[in-house]
């Protein structure tokens, strides 16, 4: 299987440069259609008398329209030139932006989104990325504008035997097949190293059925598994990290590859997650 349709979240909440860059690269590599989506939600209740509230709303609508126009122009400039299908859908509405994006991306094989400024779980008026990942049912590539640009060099799989990780790895197959180097990393306590090696070997065998050659790494768990994983990723100089994700927005917690990953709040490279 391969990727044929990309959906981009280009909501003007943060910096979308990373999304456009990753999209341009993947669209060319996989010859995909690209569907660009952008959603903004107006402030619901405006205090004051009806007259000024109406004026404020009109002002806000103008600002939003202007922002959407800018996002659309940037999209056509960077992603558009191609023989394949390109489409823009922008909306200002009261629906939660994350559910709108998830619904409109219904035919997409992959969604590419930016981490909103100020952290991954923020954004009531903008797309809440944790909500998007949970609702999409499709893999989401989180592409920051700062840090390492997306590339098809080294992919690191953060393995942990959960439903979400199994999903993430099979969702990422087209990407893993396109990358030059694939490393599967798992973190295990001292007593579980043998078992972890066996588990990882199974994954390696399964990936091999798809023609993906992978290196397998079992890291011994210390106090902080999240930074351990972060170190491996940096050490391998990964272009992209693949992981199962479980977001708990209310607890302001983002669990990635089985560990609570605070470093994802400010990702320094692309991360492909599935729920």
């Amino acid at each position, binding site marked *: *299987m391969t990727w*044929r*349709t990309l959906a981009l979240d280009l909501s003007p909440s943060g910096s979308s440069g990373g999304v456009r860059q990753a999209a341009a690269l993947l669209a060319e590599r996989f010859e*995909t*259609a690209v569907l660009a989506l952008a959603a903004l939600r107006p402030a619901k209740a405006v205090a004051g008398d009806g007259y000024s509230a109406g004026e404020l709303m009109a002002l806000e609508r103008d600002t939003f329209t202007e922002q959407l126009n800018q996002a659309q122009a940037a999209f056509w400039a960077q992603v558009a030139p191609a023989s394949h*299908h390109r489409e823009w859908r922008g909306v200002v509405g009261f629906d939660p932006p994350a559910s709108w994006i*998830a*619904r409109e991306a*219904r*035919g*997409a*094989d992959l969604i590419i989104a930016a981490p909103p400024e100020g952290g991954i779980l923020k954004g009531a008026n903008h797309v809440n990325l944790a909500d998007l990942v*949970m*609702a*999409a*049912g*499709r893999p989401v590539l989180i592409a920051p504008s700062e840090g390492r640009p997306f590339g098809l060099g080294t992919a690191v799989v953060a393995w942990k*035997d*959960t*439903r*979400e990780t*199994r*999903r993430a790895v*099979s*969702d990422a197959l087209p990407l893993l097949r396109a990358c030059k180097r694939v490393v599967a990393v798992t973190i295990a306590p001292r007593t*579980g190293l*043998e*078992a*972890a090696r*066996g*588990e990882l070997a*199974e*994954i390696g*065998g*399964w990936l*091999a*059925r*798809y*023609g993906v050659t992978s290196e397998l790494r079992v890291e011994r768990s210390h106090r902080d598994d999240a930074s351990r994983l972060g170190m491996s990723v940096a050490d391998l100089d990964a272009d992209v990290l693949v992981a199962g994700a479980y977001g708990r927005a209310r607890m302001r917690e983002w669990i990635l590859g089985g560990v609570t990953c605070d470093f994802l709040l400010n990702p320094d490279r692309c991360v492909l997650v599935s729920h």
Partner: protein
Amino acid sequence: MTDNLQTAVASGARVETGADASGEPEGYAAVLTHVQRDAPERLACARDLAQRFGAALVGIGAEAIPPIAAGPATGVVQAQWFTACNEAAEENLRVAREMFRAACAGLGAGGDWRQSLDLPIEVISRASRAADLIVASAPDGPGSGYRDARPSDLALLTGRPVLVAPSREKSLSAQRVVLAWKDTREARRAMADALPFFRRAKAVLVLEVAGRHLEDAQSRCADVVSALERHGVQAEPSAVGAVGQTDGEEILNQASAFGADLIVAGAYGHPRLGEMIFGGVTRTLLGQHELFVLLSH
């Protein structure tokens, strides 16, 4: 749990080696099924699909010894009872393994056997990490969690698509397939998971049973149809209003009118107090005995 699996892997016989690494599998690379002596048709179905997709067949032998009910039984009696159960389970697994070995004969991509004296749902969940599709069928009668893995549990817990065979002996042609569409996470999953089936089908119907806003449903179905088209699948959209019956029944009616023998759908449900609570459509699809259903969660 992990230790059990390790034992299972260590004692598992590798019947043949895996797929040819140079040939890219067209869809599913490994098809997994729970092999039981009283369900030969499930194994036959899984084998047939593995053959069709050029996939490896992963066979699971799993049965757990039920705990002994509290009672007046003395330690000696308990020990005897345990030994008897153990022997019966071992014998079942031995037969299952023989069945699997026979099924793998002549299979292009070979087979993998895993066995463990543990709860089937646990063993299958762990083994599913190295499989793409699970073939399941409901046990005859009420079944027992110690011996059987319920299709619904597999769909909700493994993270893999589960093909549920109707309990009667039926073979799957999958020439005409219905995608039961709904704008939900589960349906989006199902659509992507079922691509290998769609690509091999002669006709695919993208069906949404809509409430009031039929035009919205039509444009949603059209979206899905064009996405499928980019994957080389010719599908037709169909948005219908439910006429005086449940959505599930409407899906079944439309599917039989279309001449389909496979329905692809999202599995809706969540565990509550150890029991699975299902959505209405999922319950209807699991309760019928005519069509194959591919469920994703």
